[in-house]
C-alpha cells in the first residue's frame, strides 16, 4: 500500500487557518449583530446564515464566480500575478464560507443568552465597548463560543464539495482528507480510504472530547468544585 500522508498536513493547515479566521470573524459579527436591532437585521442575518442551508456546491460555485480567473476578485489579484484558485488558499476560503454560519449562529445565540444587566453594569462602571466585549461578553458566553469553535473546526475539517470545486484535488497541494477518501474509494483503494476515515474520526473525536473536558473543568472552577 503506497500511503501518502500529505492530505493530513493539508487538512490540518487548511482547517486551523480557516477555524482561526472564522473564530474571530464570527465572534465580531455575532456581537455586532446581537447589538444591532435595525430594520435590516432579518435580511443581514439571512444572508450570513445562507451557506448553512445551501448545498456546498452552490457555495463553491459562488466562490468560483468571485475568485475565478474571470471573477472580480480573481481579476484584481491577477494584476499582482496572484492566482488563488486551485491553491490551498482557495480551500481555506471554501472552508470559511461554509463554516462561518455555524460559528456566527451559535455564538450569537450565546451572546443573546447573556443577562443584559451584566453588560449594562459593565458600561455603567465606565468600561469601553472593547472591554465589555473581551472581559465580559466573551468570557460569559464562553461555553457557547467553545461549542461553536468545536463545530467550526469539525465542519472545516470535513469540508468537501466547495473545496473540490474551488481547490480541486491536486495531490500534495490541495488534496485534503475528505477528498482523498472520495478519490480512494472511487479508485477502489478501500484500505486507503478506511485509514483516512479512521484518522478523521480520531481527530474530530479528540477535539470534541477535549472541548467537553475543558468546559466542565471551567464550569467546576466557577462553582468551586475544584481546580
Amino acid at each position, binding site marked *: 500500500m503506497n500511503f501518502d500522508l500529505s492530505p493530513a498536513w493539508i487538512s490540518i493547515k487548511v482547517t486551523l487557518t480557516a477555524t482561526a479566521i472564522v473564530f474571530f470573524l464570527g465572534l465580531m459579527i455575532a456581537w455586532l449583530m446581537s447589538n444591532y436591532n435595525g430594520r435590516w437585521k432579518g435580511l443581514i442575518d439571512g444572508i450570513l446564515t445562507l451557506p448553512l442551508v445551501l448545498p456546498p456546491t452552490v457555495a463553491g460555485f459562488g466562490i468560483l464566480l468571485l475568485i475565478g480567473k474571470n471573477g472580480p476578485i480573481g481579476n484584481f489579484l491577477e494584476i499582482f500575478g496572484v492566482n488563488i484558485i486551485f491553491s490551498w488558499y482557495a480551500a481555506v476560503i471554501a472552508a470559511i464560507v461554509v463554516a462561518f454560519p455555524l460559528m456566527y449562529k451559535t455564538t450569537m445565540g450565546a451572546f443573546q443568552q447573556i*443577562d443584559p*444587566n*451584566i453588560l*449594562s*453594569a*459593565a*458600561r*455603567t*462602571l*465606565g*468600561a*469601553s465597548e472593547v*472591554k465589555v466585549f473581551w*472581559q*465580559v461578553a466573551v*468570557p*460569559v458566553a*464562553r461555553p457557547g463560543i467553545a461549542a461553536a469553535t468545536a463545530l467550526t473546526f469539525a465542519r472545516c475539517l470535513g469540508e468537501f464539495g466547495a473545496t473540490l470545486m474551488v481547490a480541486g484535488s491536486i495531490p500534495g497541494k490541495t488534496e485534503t482528507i475528505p477528498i482523498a477518501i472520495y478519490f480512494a474509494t472511487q479508485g477502489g483503494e478501500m484500505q486507503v480510504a478506511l485509514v483516512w476515515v479512521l484518522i478523521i474520526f480520531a481527530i474530530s473525536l479528540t477535539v470534541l472530547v477535549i472541548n467537553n473536558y475543558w468546559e466542565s473543568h471551567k464550569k467546576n*472552577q*466557577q*462553582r*468551586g468544585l475544584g481546580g
Partner: protein
Amino acid sequence: MEFIIDIKKKLYDFQLDVKLQSKEEIIGILGASGSGKSMLLRCIAGLVKPDQGQIIINGKTFFDSEKKINLSMRERKVGFLFQNYALFPNMTIAENIAFGLDKLSKHEKKSRVSALMEKYHLGDIGKRYPSQISGGQQQRVALARAVAVEPEMLLLDEPFSALDVHLRNHMIRELSELLKEFQGITLFVTHNRDEAYYLSDYIAVFNTGKVEIYGQKDAIFKWPGSLETAKITGCKNIVEATRRSENQLYVPQWDIALRTVMKIEPDVGFMGIRANQIKLLDEQDSQQENCFKVYIADESEGPFRTWLYLKIGSRPKSRADFHLQCEISREQRRHLDNLEEPFIMYINPDYVFFVAQ
C-alpha cells in the same frame, strides 16, 4: 447636591412622564409593580433613551433632547444596583469590585478593593466566584462594585426583592448604614412602603408613569396628598366622604361624622384612616367625639398582630358585612375578651385625612 429630571418616554401601555427636582441625598421611589419606576432609573443611567426632556445631575447634563445631548452610560458613570445584582459570573469577588478601577495603579487598586471588602463585611471571600456566595453577600459585592468608582449618584432597583424575608430586614439596616456614608445622591426604587420609609427621608410616589406626590416621608404617610398615594402607602380604610365644615366630614356609607385636624377644602372626596391608628377603648361611652359603637364581623390573626373587620352601629349580617379594618396586637385582642360587644372605637382626628377625587 441637586438633580433635575423632566422626561417623557412612551412605554408599552402608558407614558412615563416624570418631573422631579430635589436637593435631598436619599430619595425613595415608591410605586406598584409596573408603574414605570425602574424605567426611570434606566433612563437616568442611560440604559434607555427618553423620548424627550432633560436629566441634569449636579449641574452635569446627562440628557437634553433640545440641545441634543445624550451621554453614554460610560460617560454618566452612575452607580447602578440591579435587581439581580448582575455580578460578572466569570470573575472573582475581588475582580468584580476592581472592574471599574482601571485608571488606578495596581497598588492603589488593591488597597481600594481591600478597603471596600472590609467596609462591606466581605471578609475573605475575595477569591470566590459570585455563584459561591449568599444573596446578601452578592448584594454587598454589587454595592461595593458600584461605589468603588466613586459615582455621584447611586441608583438602586428593588435591592431587596431577591432576598429571603429573614435576610431582608437585616440587609435593610445594613444598607441604610452604608448609604449614610455615601457622598452623593441615592435614588432607591421599591414597591414596599416599609423599605421606602426605612431607607429614605424623602419619598416620591409613582403611579402609572407619573410622580403623584413628592415630599417628606412622615408627611406623606400621615396625610397622603392623593387617593393613589393613600393606597400605595398602604392605607386600608378609604371611603367616599363629603365636607361638612373646615374640620368636619361626613361618611355616607358608615353614616358617621368625623372631626379632622386636617383642613378640608374640596366638597367631595375620600377620607382615610390607617388600620393601626384605630383604637378600641375600655370605657363604654360612645358620646365622645370621634367615638363609635362597633361590632366585629370577622378577624384574621397574624403571628403577632390581629386584624379586625369592624362594622359601625349595628350587628353584622355576615362575615363580609364590615366597614373598616383595624390592626391591633394579639395582647390587645385578648384584652377585648373581657369586654362586651359593642366595643367603642376611637378615631384620632389627627390621623384622619381627606383627599380630593
